[in-house]
């Protein structure tokens, strides 16, 4: 030990995978006196979102990391969405839980699968012309076909393997010490597109990347190879349900331009763009389902 005296052993480890958590509400809107206030709570395996809607219009949302306790994550995401709005949980008329932890949302009136919610949310975010939605989530990937009302007509979910998911991208960001938010841009900054790394498994892809770095590949080139592998992986899933125009992408990976560009190139399609945050699609759909369900309840009560 004495020989190590004075040597700085390690620097504080930076978590490159950690993305920014945020909340937002529309200050121009007043929720008091609104007939229908609904909320969607999407507790995913990696992130949790809450969307609050006033008569079917977006009012507030939050997006944060899911912790080890799903009910607690739902509570935290809800209180963050409500922050500075003056609204309380009791003011919301109907709450729909969705996502991986949908059955663990303690204050929800109903649980609906994330597949139906993403289709409904995607329909609002991208318009009624959207027919194929790809949701690239934290630990799963969903290919969804839907009709003009946002009703699912065909779906497929792959949650057995981390390849093609946000978690896989986080692993690479950490390995290469590149902030998760910069991965996409940096992967496009290569002179020539490298061949993709293994697309069948994140663990194999990671060890392949380590070998490539040792061979002298730049970080950007390795990122390009991984983004390309991820795009290829997802295309296989999409082909199973069939891709019909218009095509849109939701979830955290939709913010990674490196994957999106390569995916569009492989599909020979351009994905729709939206002003909405792509990560709130599930919660948005859940809140819209909430509106329909409370209106049905009110009709029955009359």
């Amino acid at each position, binding site marked *: 030990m004495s020989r190590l005296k004075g040597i700085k052993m390690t620097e504080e480890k930076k978590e490159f995978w950690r993305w920014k958590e945020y909340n937002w509400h529309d200050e121009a809107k007043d929720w008091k006196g609104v007939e229908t206030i609904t909320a969607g709570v999407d507790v995913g395996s990696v992130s949790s979102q809450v969307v609050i809607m006033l008569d079917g219009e977006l009012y507030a949302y939050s997006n944060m990391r899911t912790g080890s306790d799903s009910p607690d994550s739902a509570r935290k995401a809800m209180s963050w969405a409500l922050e500075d709005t003056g609204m309380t949980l009791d003011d919301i008329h109907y709450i729909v839980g969705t996502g991986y932890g949908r059955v663990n949302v303690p204050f929800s009136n109903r649980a609906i699968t994330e597949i139906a919610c993403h289709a409904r949310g995607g329909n609002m975010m991208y318009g009624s012309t959207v027919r194929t939605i790809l949701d690239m989530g934290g630990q799963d990937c969903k290919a969804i076909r839907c009709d003009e009302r946002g*009703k699912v007509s065909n779906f497929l979910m792959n949650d057995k393997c981390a390849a093609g998911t946000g978690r896989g991208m986080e692993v690479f960001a950490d390995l290469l010490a590149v902030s998760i938010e910069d991965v996409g841009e940096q992967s496009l900054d290569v002179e020539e597109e490298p061949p993709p790394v293994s697309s069948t498994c994140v663990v194999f892809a990671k060890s392949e990347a380590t070998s490539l770095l040792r061979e002298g590949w730049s970080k950007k080139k390795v990122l390009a190879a991984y983004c390309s592998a991820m795009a290829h992986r997802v295309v296989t899933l999409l082909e199973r349900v069939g891709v019909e125009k218009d095509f849109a992408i939701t979830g955290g990976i939709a913010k990674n331009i490196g994957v999106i560009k390569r995916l569009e190139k492989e599909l020979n399609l351009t994905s729709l763009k939206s002003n909405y945050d792509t990560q709130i699609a599930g919660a948005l759909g859940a809140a819209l389902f909430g509106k329909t369900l409370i209106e049905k309840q009110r009709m029955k009560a009359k």
Partner: protein
Amino acid sequence: MKANYGYLDGSGEFFITIDTDLCIECSHHGCVDACPVGMFEIIVDDYDDKVAAIKEEHRKKVKYDCSACKPVSDRPPLPCVEACTPGAITHSW
């Protein structure tokens, strides 16, 4: 709606597809009793329709759970497919 239950991994694509538009017409749901490992259940889906689905605990191992009904050669008709009179069930492998 076509619901694909299963997964894609390094060894291939393993999906059981249930066409709920056809399934909804069925009153007896023979698939539930026909499957020797009890993979099927009847659920109320997100659109309030009563349809067959693969149980959660089988979705990530359909390749293995179906193996008894899928010998390498001389494969007989699958019991679930045979029992499904509306023809709503298909297997990808």
